[in-house]
C-alpha cells in the first residue's frame, strides 16, 4: 500500500473551479438557478465537514454505545425518509412492519458481517462499522421503499382479483401469492443490477476511495465483494420481511380486505 495522496488546502479550494464553471454556464443559459447550485455546494461542504469532525470524534471513542447509537440514528433517519414518502398512503400496521424490516433487516446482516466476515476487533470498531452500516442501511432503504410502494400498488390495482380469490375460498396468502414474488423481484432489482454492472459499467465509490487512498486494487475488490454481499443480504432480508409481514396488514383477522388507511 502506498501513502495517502494528501490534498493541500489550496488544491481543495481549486476543485471549486468546477462550481464556478457551472455558475457561469447557468448565467449564460439564463437558468436562474445559480443560487440553488451554490446552496447545494455549500450544503455539501458543510455537511461533509461536520460529518468529518463527528467521525473523527466517534473513531477516537471506540465505545459500543456510541457505535450503536449512530447506527440507530441512521436507521431512524432512513425510516423518517421512507415514512415521509408514504405520508397518508400506508396504514399504521404497515408502518410498524416497515420499521421492523429496517431494524431487523439491517442489524442482523450487519452483526454477521462484522463478526464473521470482517472479523473486526472489537466487532463494533466504528471505523469499519459505521461506513458499512451506512451502505447497508442506504441500500435497504431503497429496497424497503420499492417493496412497500409495489405492495400498496398491488392492493390498489388488483383488489378485484384478490377479492375474487377470497370468494373462491383462498387464504389471504394464496390470494396474493404471485404478487408477493413479483414484489420481491422488483424491490431487489436495483441491487442485482448494481452487482451485474460492477467493475465493468462502473467502479463503485467505495473501491475508488480505497484505491485513491493507496490500497491495492486487489485488496479493494475483496472489500467491495464482501460489502456487496452484505448489502445483498440486508436488502433481501428487509424486503422479505416487508412482503411476508406487509401483505397481512391489508387484511383483518377475519381474512377480509381492509382499506389502505384503516
Amino acid at each position, binding site marked *: 500500500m502506498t501513502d495517502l495522496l494528501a490534498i493541500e488546502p489550496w488544491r481543495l479550494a481549486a476543485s471549486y473551479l468546477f462550481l464556478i464553471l457551472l455558475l457561469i454556464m447557468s448565467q449564460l443559459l439564463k437558468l436562474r438557478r445559480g443560487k440553488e447550485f451554490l446552496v447545494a455546494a455549500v450544503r455539501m461542504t458543510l455537511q461533509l465537514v461536520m460529518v468529518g469532525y463527528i467521525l473523527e470524534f466517534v473513531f477516537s471513542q471506540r465505545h459500543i454505545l456510541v457505535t450503536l447509537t449512530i447506527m440507530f440514528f441512521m436507521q431512524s433517519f432512513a425510516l423518517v425518509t421512507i415514512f415521509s414518502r408514504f405520508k397518508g398512503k400506508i396504514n399504521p400496521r404497515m408502518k410498524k412492519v416497515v420499521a421492523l424490516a429496517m431494524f431487523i433487516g439491517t442489524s442482523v446482516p450487519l452483526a454477521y458481517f462484522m463478526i464473521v466476515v470482517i472479523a473486526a476487533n472489537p466487532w463494533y470498531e466504528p471505523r469499519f462499522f459505521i461506513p458499512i452500516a451506512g451502505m447497508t442501511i442506504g441500500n435497504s432503504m431503497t429496497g424497503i421503499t420499492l417493496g412497500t410502494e409495489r405492495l400498496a400498488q398491488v392492493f390498489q390495482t388488483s383488489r*378485484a*382479483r384478490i377479492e*375474487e380469490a*377470497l*370468494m*373462491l375460498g383462498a387464504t389471504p396468502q394464496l390470494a396474493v401469492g404471485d404478487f408477493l414474488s413479483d414484489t420481491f423481484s422488483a424491490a431487489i432489482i436495483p441491487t442485482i443490477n448494481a452487482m451485474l454492472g460492477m467493475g465493468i459499467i462502473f467502479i463503485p465509490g467505495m473501491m475508488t476511495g480505497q484505491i485513491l487512498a493507496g490500497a491495492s486494487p486487489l485488496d479493494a475488490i475483496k472489500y467491495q465483494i464482501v460489502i456487496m454481499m452484505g448489502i445483498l443480504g440486508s436488502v433481501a432480508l428487509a424486503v422479505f420481511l416487508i412482503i411476508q409481514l406487509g401483505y397481512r396488514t391489508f387484511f383483518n383477522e377475519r381474512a377480509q*380486505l381492509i382499506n389502505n388507511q384503516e
Partner: protein
Amino acid sequence: MQAVFSLTKISYRQILAIPALEIPAGSLYGITGKSGSGKTTLLKLLNNLISCEQSGNVFYYGQNVLTIDPVSLRRRVVMIPQSPYIFPGTVRENIRLAFHFNRKEVPRQDVIDNLLDQLDLPGFMDKDTFNLSGGEKQRLALVRAVLLDPETLLLDEPTAALDDENATAVVSHLAQWVRKPGKSVVMITHAGALISEYADAILNLARGRIRSLDERRDSND
C-alpha cells in the same frame, strides 16, 4: 325448517338495517331491490367478506359466523360478484386456479365438460378468457363456482349480462342444483319474471330495510 342463514339485529353503517331474517336451507332465495338498497352488502355479510361493525349477528346453520374460520366458511359458501374477475389464461386455467384457492381436487374432465355444455360453453376448455364475451365470462364464473360444489352459492346478479335464453338456462340449472341434498342458493336479481318462476322465496329490500318477503313455497316440498 332449518335456516341456512339467520340474521339478527343487523346494522351495517348506514347501508343495511335488518332486525331479523331467516333464509331457509335448501331453497333458491331471491333478493330484489333498487340500486343502493343494500343487496350486495347483505351478500358480502353472508360471505364474511365484511362484518357487522355496529351490531348484529349472522349465523350459518345455527353457528355464529364469527366463530367459524373465515376461510373455511368461504370454502363452504362461495360467492360470485356482479362483475366476476376472470383470471388471465384459458378456461382450464381458471378452473384449476379456483380449485387451487379452494384447496380441492379438480373434478374429472367429463364432469367439467358436462357443466360447460349445460351452460352453453361447449368446447371452451382451452379458450383464452381474453376473448370471452361478458355473458360467457359470467357463465364461466358460475361454472367455476358450481364445480367447487360448495354447500351454498351466493350470486350477485348472475344473469345481468345474459340474453333471455341463457338467463333461463342458468336459473333453471340453479333451481335443479339446489334440489341436491345440503345445497342452498341466495341470488340477487333484477330478472323479475324469471325469479318469480323459480325462486322459493323473494326478499325485497329498499334503502337497506326489508320491504317485503314473499315466501312462495316450502323448499322441502
